């Protein structure tokens, strides 16, 4: 059995792992050891989580591998307070968008943002800026002071402070996407031959590209320019397949498809995964469009029937173990569909609702017909 340690000791251990960098050897023994230490701490400090684990017979005394640590379904962040401490002491509470039901938003409390920030910046660098220290970051997102409960805004603000060269800024304000300002700034960067990095939510890119198409505008951004998009569309713009989005970016902005990075992040996590041709090129990897987690996290694909770990190539539910989630829960069971690949995993979309095969009707179909979250 792993002894329960103080959170400061555990945080120091995570910092040490993050400090070893994104390309450290993926050592399963040290990952396992720290995961079990965190599990013992979280089991002791988080009573709803303890009950959840006890019901499954998974206690620190019984668990020997991080894979046995029960992952918490993200729905739990809406129903329970999953924090290892009094929430009054939290320095940040990141909330899910509540697209399906605004009254029920998942809450992820952070008692310090140092771990989150260290994890996020350490893995952003090799995926988005492996070749330069700073670039002007043109952010198609809201600044953190406008959206204090958005983990994405915090993340974008952090990257802007850490990696933004002069000319960096946010382009979503009170009135939504400030298209005209963005057009002016992009044209200026184009004329000056200054490479830029555009970052933001995928749906914001779709909006912007639609405007460019309407006005028949094209840019030839300087070599070294790049794009990082994240997240789905969630009904906020038309749905565009990832490949189509990148072809449109190449066509309208002049940023080649292999300079476009896709980031996969969640409110419930403290790490991000990336599908980055930039990092793959720098490491000589072959697979296209594979998502990879940092060395302080693991992603597995689970059988939806039994929640057992699936082999490479089999479709199932994406589950993350994130050691940077030190004060909530390490294991997170998503509602995303994925498949494991030799170098990482592929994200196949949100799990769609269950549909009936005939004249019966499933809850999801009734909800869809009524267009709201509860009947």
């Amino acid at each position, binding site marked *: 059995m792993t002894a329960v340690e103080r959170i400061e000791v555990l945080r120091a251990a995570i910092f040490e792992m993050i400090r070893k960098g994104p390309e450290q050897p993926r050592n399963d023994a040290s990952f396992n050891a720290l995961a079990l230490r965190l599990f013992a701490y979280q089991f002791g400090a988080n009573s*709803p989580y303890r*009950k*959840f684990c006890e*019901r499954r017979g998974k206690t620190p005394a019984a668990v020997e591998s991080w894979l046995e640590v029960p992952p918490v*379904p993200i*729905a*739990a962040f809406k*129903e*329970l307070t999953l924090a290892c401490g009094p929430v009054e002491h939290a320095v940040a509470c990141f909330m899910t968008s509540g697209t399906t039901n605004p009254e029920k938003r998942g809450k992820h409390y952070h008692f310090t943002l140092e771990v989150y920030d260290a994890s996020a910046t350490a893995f952003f660098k090799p995926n988005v800026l492996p070749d330069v220290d700073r670039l002007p970051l043109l952010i198609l997102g809201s600044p953190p002071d406008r959206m204090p409960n958005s983990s994405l805004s915090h993340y974008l603000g952090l990257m802007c402070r850490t990696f933004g060269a002069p000319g960096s800024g946010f382009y979503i304000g009170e009135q939504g996407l400030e298209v005209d300002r963005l057009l002016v700034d992009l044209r200026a960067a184009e004329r000056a031959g200054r490479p830029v990095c555009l970052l933001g939510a995928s749906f914001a890119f779709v909006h912007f590209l639609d405007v460019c198409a309407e006005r028949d505008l094209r840019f030839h951004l300087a070599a070294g320019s790049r794009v990082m998009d994240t997240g789905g569309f969630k009904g906020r713009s038309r749905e565009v397949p990832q490949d189509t989005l990148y072809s449109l970016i190449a066509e309208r902005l002049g940023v080649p498809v292999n300079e476009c990075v896709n980031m996969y992040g969640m409110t419930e996590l403290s790490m991000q995964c990336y599908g980055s041709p930039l990092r793959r090129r720098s490491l000589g990897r072959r697979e296209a469009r594979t998502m990879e987690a940092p060395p302080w996290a693991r992603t597995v694909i689970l*059988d*939806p*029937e*039994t*929640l057992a770990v699936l082999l490479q190539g089999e*479709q*199932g*539910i994406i589950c993350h173990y994130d050691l940077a989630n030190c004060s909530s829960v390490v294991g997170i069971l998503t*509602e995303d*569909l994925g498949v494991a690949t030799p170098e990482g995993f592929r994200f196949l979309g949100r*799990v*769609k*609702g*269950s*549909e*009936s*095969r*005939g*004249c*019966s*009707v*499933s*809850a*999801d*179909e*009734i909800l869809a*017909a009524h267009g709201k979250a509860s*009947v």
Partner: protein
Amino acid sequence: MTWRDDSPRFLPPEVEGEAASGQISPVLVAKVAAHIWAARKAYLVRLPVAEIVEILDRSVALWLEAGSPWMEAASRRMAAITPYCDAMIRAGIRRLLEGCRRDALLTLLQAELGDLSVLDAFRPRPASRGSHRATGPALTTHIFSGNVPGLPAISLIHGLLVKSANLGKPASEEPVFPALFARSIAAVDPKLAAAVAILPWAGGDTAVEAAAFAASEAVVAYGSDASVESIGARVPPDVRFVGHGHRVSFAVVGREALDLGTLGSLAERVAYDVSLFDQQGCVSPHVIYVERGGAIPPEAFAERLAEAMAAFERAMPRGRLAVEEASAIQQVRTEAELRELREEPIRLFLSPGGTAWTVIYEDDPTFVPSCLNRVVRVKALADIGELPNLVRPISRYLQTVGTAMSPERRDRLADALAPLGVCRVCPIGEMPHPPLFWHHDGGFSLLPLLTWTSIEK
């Protein structure tokens, strides 16, 4: 032996070669329609309805005799391609076809037409001095669903009883049964079966369906609201359309039915209604309302139901699920478990090691539709009188209500539920097996297909 033919098609021999060699085109559909239209005109339309009943009865009997090769072929091939196990397919087809014998066919005709020979000739019209007769569509197109094994037989029987030629499109997930059933009719009377064709075109192929609908005088469709609506919108205005879309059912146990001596058998019957067809039937219950104040508290009933669900699973395992379906069950279980952890009045009973069955007991009586595949909620009810208000939000979908209570209270409940659209109240244990003469989705089965002609004297 024709039943050895594994083809999902059943077509006039003149076009069989053409259908086997290529894609299904609007031209092929028009040719098939012309052949079955001619076969109807040459034979079926002159056949007295009483004789049609005899032929159908003998066809159905072929399926029900011991060791029936028809049943064998259907269950073997359906078990291979549908999610259902062999035992559930056999049980489903058997019960369905047992309800299609001579007596049931005559009861249906009598219940809807009074005098069944109005389908053969002008007959005196009751309460008038005139006479009348009924004519079915020259040709009916059927779009089948694949959720209930054997269900296409009912629609084909309706069409044949009103002397219509019948063009059927099997569901892509269950292309086996319709052609087999048509062949079993051919085994009894090939001339009658010549007025039937089964052609598996791709659902939603608008060009092919436009050709089928143009050749039809009626279209009958089973499936999701979306597919039924899409089909209905494409049926020409002068062609009759009957659509059976989404429906929801539930069961109610009155306090007087809760006694220790019969608890086990009641729970078994509820488990049967929930588990047969994995809740994919519109007749499958989503929620079991259990009244308080009986000898067994609702929560204890839920526990007993869980045992019965486990026993049913051993006898007829739940079908294979898609990732989305299994994941939906996991999410429902999670949501319930989290509420249980917050000490809300809710209890979970789960199949071990997988998602085979789920019973969720809740104090809260709000109707919650199931994600299907053997996920059922038991909800406590202070009094049956609360039910109409509880199900009003889903009245647009309501269909069957299974009951276990005194006949007097059942009748009062039925009175209160009728205005909300409930079309069938039946004993618990019978929910998956509506009789042939039921008011399917609140209407008649034969009458919507018929055109009446009267002679005034």
